[in-house]
């Protein structure tokens, strides 16, 4: 039973080989321009002497899509929007060609303004004249009625068969039109490059004789079969932080409330594990100033790391978020938190004398010894990170609630452990934990926690069903599917059954022949529709999923070598 986890990061590509709950081998190599060769190098190191056909499963996580988006290395996407009345159209600024077509649906999927054909033709023509080959077609309330989106997309494809077209209702069925626009736009923008990534992975694995199923980690900590994931490339944004969170989950005892602190060169990533499960963000992920619909773990990036530059300004010592090179003790130009750790004997990186020199340059004008200055710098880092952790917990407590039981269920939780992963963790974790009144933990294999997280991740599937018996239709949010339903007496139980049936359907579609026995009901709401004191129909809002979890805990079943 061998499992492989691979994390393709911006700087390093990590791989681990798990054997029945034990880490059998791990590898860390530089990520190169040529993705295929980095993958092969990491695989070869991790697989030393192991035959590929023994591998049961491979899971990848990657920051590739995240980096593409942040660095804006994607083809421009033109937007054909059908917003109708509501917010001023001035709000729809997405830094790309945007063409508005009159027409509108309402919250129940009723057409309130028909699509204006002539204006549609003009918009399509303008967009083509401006040279857009990738197009996102998105309407307000399209997840309640996708007819307008389909009509515009069909016309576009008819006129310009070479266009790559994405429709909003297929990418993001949740409510929130602006986020649907962004999600659709980014899907359209990254699809081609993502397909290249998928091809590289499949080639690398087959070259090494691995024909086990391959999965990709999503931002929410679940996985998808790699071949199916090309439909939803943006689901992989932030799978890096998700991987390290799952890694910590696997490397710590079940059921604990911990905060994951991943201290890197210039940023520190924070995530919460509440009573053993990673916390999901209440809203979709934000990337590069764009708000998306991508379901993600609640992760937070704090702009402080081991290589952040430290400066004296007047009588203050200040940490900046920038990096100007390696720490002074490793030949860099400026004092950094790593130099402070070196002076205090909390790390062995770099040259001790240069570290003292760096701290002296900061402290001397303030009458501080190098040791005192180092303490001061460390405390700044610790205070910044601890404050952000506290804030994450408060924000979680203060998340909006729309039901009485949700308000009553609000609880206050504080971490029992602070788990450090990443290069800079060792020096800071015990003091951050002390500030929060928790125990510090640096698990074994912390440097490859993300690859371990990928290896233990499991597929998850969700279905959100909305039935409107009065309008006579139902929709499946995740599939962009809408169909007539001609049964005025449709019951809650039938709705639950329908949702479960769709969960099974989706499992088949994604080649997950796991049996859908355990269906978790996350939400089941029934709204009685009453008009003139007579019940005229019902709206059911049902959300089900397969259980979330990980393969197992490392070291729980066997010994770690």
């Amino acid at each position, binding site marked *: 039973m061998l499992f492989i986890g691979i994390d393709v990061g911006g700087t390093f590509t990590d791989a681990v080989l798990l054997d029945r709950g034990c880490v059998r081998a791990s590898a860390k190599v530089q990520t190169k321009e040529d993705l295929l060769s980095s993958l092969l190098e990491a695989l070869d190191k991790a697989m030393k002497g192991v035959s590929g056909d023994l591998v049961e499963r491979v899971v990848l996580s990657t920051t590739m899509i995240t980096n593409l988006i942040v660095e804006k290395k994607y083809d421009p996407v033109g937007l054909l929007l059908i917003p109708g009345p509501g*917010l001023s159209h001035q709000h729809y600024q997405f830094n790309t060609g945007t063409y508005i077509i009159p027409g509108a649906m309402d*919250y129940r999927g009723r057409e309130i303004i028909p699509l204006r054909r002539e204006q549609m033709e003009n918009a399509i023509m303008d967009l083509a004249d401006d040279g857009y080959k990738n197009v996102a077609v998105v309407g*307000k309330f399209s997840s309640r009625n996708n007819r307008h989106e389909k009509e515009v997309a069909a016309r576009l494809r008819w006129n310009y068969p070479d266009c790559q077209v994405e429709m909003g209702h297929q990418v993001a069925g949740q409510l*929130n039109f602006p*986020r649907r626009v962004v999600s659709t736009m980014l899907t359209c923008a990254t699809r081609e490059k993502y397909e290249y990534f998928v091809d590289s992975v499949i080639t690398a694995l087959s070259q090494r004789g691995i024909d086990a199923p391959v999965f990709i980690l999503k931002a929410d900590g679940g996985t998808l079969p790699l071949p199916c994931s090309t439909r939803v490339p943006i689901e992989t944004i932030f799978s890096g932080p998700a991987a390290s969170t799952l890694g910590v989950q696997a490397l710590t005892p079940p059921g604990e409330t911990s905060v994951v602190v991943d201290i890197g060169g210039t940023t520190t990533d924070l995530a919460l594990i509440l009573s053993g499960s990673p916390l999901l963000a209440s809203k979709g992920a934000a990337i590069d100033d764009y*708000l998306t619909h991508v379901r993600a773990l609640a992760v937070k990036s704090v702009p402080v790391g081991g290589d952040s530059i430290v400066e004296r300004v007047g009588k203050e010592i200040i940490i900046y978020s920038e990096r100007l090179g390696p720490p002074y003790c490793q030949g860099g130009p400026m004092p950094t938190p790593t130099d402070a750790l070196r002076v205090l004997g909390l790390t062995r990186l770099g040259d001790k004398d240069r570290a003292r020199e760096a701290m002296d340059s900061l402290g001397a004008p303030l009458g501080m010894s190098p040791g005192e200055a180092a303490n001061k710098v460390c405390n700044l880092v610790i205070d910044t990170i601890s404050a952000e952790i506290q804030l994450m917990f408060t924000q979680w407590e203060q998340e909006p*609630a729309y039901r*009485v039981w949700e308000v009553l269920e609000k609880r206050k939780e504080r971490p029992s452990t602070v788990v450090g992963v990443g290069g800079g963790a060792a020096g800071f974790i015990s003091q951050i934990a002390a500030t929060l009144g928790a125990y510090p933990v640096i698990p074994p294999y912390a440097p490859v926690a993300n690859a371990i997280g990928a290896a233990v991740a499991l597929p998850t599937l969700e279905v959100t069903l909305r039935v409107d018996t009065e309008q006579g239709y139902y929709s499946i949010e995740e599939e962009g599917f809408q169909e007539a339903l001609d049964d005025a007496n449709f019951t809650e139980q039938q709705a639950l059954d329908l949702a479960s049936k769709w969960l099974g359907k989706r499992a088949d579609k994604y080649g997950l022949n796991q049996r859908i026995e355990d269906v978790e009901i996350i939400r089941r709401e029934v*709204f009685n529709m009453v008009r003139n004191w007579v019940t005229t129909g019902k*709206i059911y809002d049902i959300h089900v999923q397969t259980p979330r979890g990980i393969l197992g805990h490392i070291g729980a079943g066997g010994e770690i070598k």
Partner: protein
Amino acid sequence: MEKKTGLIFFPAFDWAISPTHPEREERLLYTRDQIFEEGVMDLPQIREYAPRLASLHDIARVHFCVPRVQSQVTEAHLIAAGSALQLGDAVVSGDIKNGFAMVRPPGHHAMRTVHGNRGFCNINNEAVLVDYLRRRHGLKRIAIIDSDVHHGDGTQDIFYHDPDVLFISFHQDGRTIFPGTGFSHELGGPQAYGTTLNVPMPPGIGDETLEYIVDNLIVPVIKDFKPDFIINSAGQDNHYSDPLGSMRFTARGYADFTRKLNPDMAVLEGGYAIETALPYLNLAIILALARLDYSYVLEPDYWPGRFTENAERASKVHRTVDYLRDVWEKRNSADIDNIFGKGDFYQRKKFIYYDTDYIEEEQIEKVKKCSNCIGYLLIESRGERGYRAPVRILAVTVPFAACEACQQEAYDAYHQAKKKEQYDYVYMQDKSLDTCLNYERDKNHEWSTEG
């Protein structure tokens, strides 16, 4: 950067008076759909807050709940009131410029004594907020503008003798709609004459006349009154499509009103056109509070010029406005003894019907005409529900800045009533000390809460 508008959206998707009652789970469902689909919560001008629970003492500071607070409130009520307090805190502390508590259940028909539910209300969210702001944050003068189609009789009742709270309500004429009050001659008690102003409107009145009321009464009176805090009791049943009201206000009209009033806080009240009005009205009000363009918000069945007002009815409202403006301007020279009679106390008798719970209440309310403070209140009330034995109570309210003599007399009255057989429950609501007492005869026991 300009401060944000705070929102608490609490649709109480798991709370209803009954499955087919207008106050049911479905009421804010389409509003949720609209504001979430528009991405309102993501706007940089908006900050969404989580609701919180009001404490039982926050309720006792305002209401005499019979027999006690716990028996009149559900958790949903505490959350609705608590949401108003949460935003009130954020406005006063300067975290946000204004706030909108889009909450259920509503509250503006809940009076000072509460025997049950009336007009869908048990707890007056705005009144709880007013006394909390005064107690917790030391605010002095507060204005409440009620834009519900129904007269805000509960709010009026609670502040009728309080000159530090200005209450202005415009609503459909009480002769044609629940609760049958809110006439222009209801102007406040002898200690607070002119700080209650009612504009009853005949059916069919629209945006144009609303604008007249705002420009000629509400805005100038508020300017004179100089409140520390303005609350909009934001009922939405004046909308042309509301099934309970007969008015013709539009989403645009409500938004213009909100922009001109510029309240520190709005608290949702009624509004039962849950599909045709609420999604658009709530969106427009949010945008108006956040100073964003609301001109794109349009009801699907509305077109400019759809409604023309009846000139005669409009001029009737104009006359009421002019009359009230006159009352307001001359309020300090009014002959109070002539209006309310002489004597140490002013007394009024009230019959209150609880339409939801079928309770009849008879009440005698006395206010001390003190010249050193606004005077304490004595309330004797008898609530009768069907064939059950009536419940009789005596309740005493000591105002925030009570003089020593009033305080003494009020406590004497409370202690004397405790000795009298005729009262099942005796209450003391001392706002000056923020202490509430509740005595139950059968158990010979006194409970107290403090802030």
